[in-house]
């Protein structure tokens, strides 16, 4: 089977995730959208591994998963800390660094 449909699906998911990051206000949902984007890139990696006939793409997807797991752990800890001090998980409320 051709790899183009998989890549198109990956591009679609990535764009939807990007829209979600820009549109949503809840920090946790923004994080979920980032995860969606990472997953979409993983799909592209796996697809290109099949296209090129070597396993390097799958290794790259594996590393993306590891980094995503670490990122989720730290990011959610930051969200919990912000929520503890400000009683809000909205990204608009944590704008103090701007000033």
């Amino acid at each position: 089977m051709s790899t183009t449909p998989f890549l198109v699906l990956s591009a679609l998911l990535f764009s939807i995730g990007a829209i979600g990051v820009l549109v949503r206000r809840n920090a946790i949902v923004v994080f979920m959208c980032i995860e969606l984007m990472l997953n979409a890139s993983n799909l592209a990696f796996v697809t290109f591994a099949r296209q090129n006939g070597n396993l390097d793409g799958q290794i790259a997807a594996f590393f993306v998963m590891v980094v995503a797991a670490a990122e989720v752990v730290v990011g959610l800890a930051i969200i919990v800390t912000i929520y503890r001090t400000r009683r809000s998980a909205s990204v608009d409320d944590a704008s103090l660094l701007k000033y």
Partner: protein
Amino acid sequence: MIVFWVLAPIMVICAVGMVAVRNAVHSAVLLAVVMVSLAIMYAVQDAPFLFAVQIIVYTGAVLMLFLFVLMLVGVDSADSLVETLRGQRAAAGVAGVLLAILLILGITQSTFGAVVGLSKANLAGNVPGLAQLLFSRYVFAFEVTSALLITAALGAMVLAHRERFTPKPTQRDLVLQRMREYASDGIHPGPLPTSGTFARHNSVDTPALLPDGAISQLSISRVMRARGTIRQVVPPQIVSADPRTGQSVPGEPAQIDGGEQ
């Protein structure tokens, strides 16, 4: 091929729903659907190891963590629909659609040549092949990953750690405080009365009865009273007894001791 055309629409619909749905828990569930479908996509594309890792790490660990934090932060913290920047939503939507069009045009216009396929690379099995690469060419990246994971775990622990500003109250302090409250405000130092125990109901929404048959307000949760979900209890009629003989007056129903007269 069939798997792809069945799963791809589901994934796109769920992803759009994840962005559109207001409740964050629904978003998480829709994301779970997308991730499981992605795992099946990996399995279709000769990546059984990534299939397992996707299910275990993403749908198992990461999504569980998301839901855990959602419960911690409060499920009802719905998104505000107020736009802080005017027209930002529409602009973001247009930018996203343009990005999708750009990417799809780029993918469809480029030629990749014939698909090589992984049957040769997976000859010794997918997992041994991946391990061979991971511990030879990518061994440095693998080691760096371990450092990253340790740093992330430490960082999460430091961030989640709550600094204690006052000394932890011991049991002695608690007792003394309770006694002080009893002396000053008359608050009963013992435990609160439990919910009522009757022949039919001993659930938490049944209030306890005081010796005179009145309902004890302390025995029911404040939350349940605010919600108005307290079971209505008809206090049993007290048998009016003759003060001189101690005999119950004939004709009165004796409901407390089961009508045994």
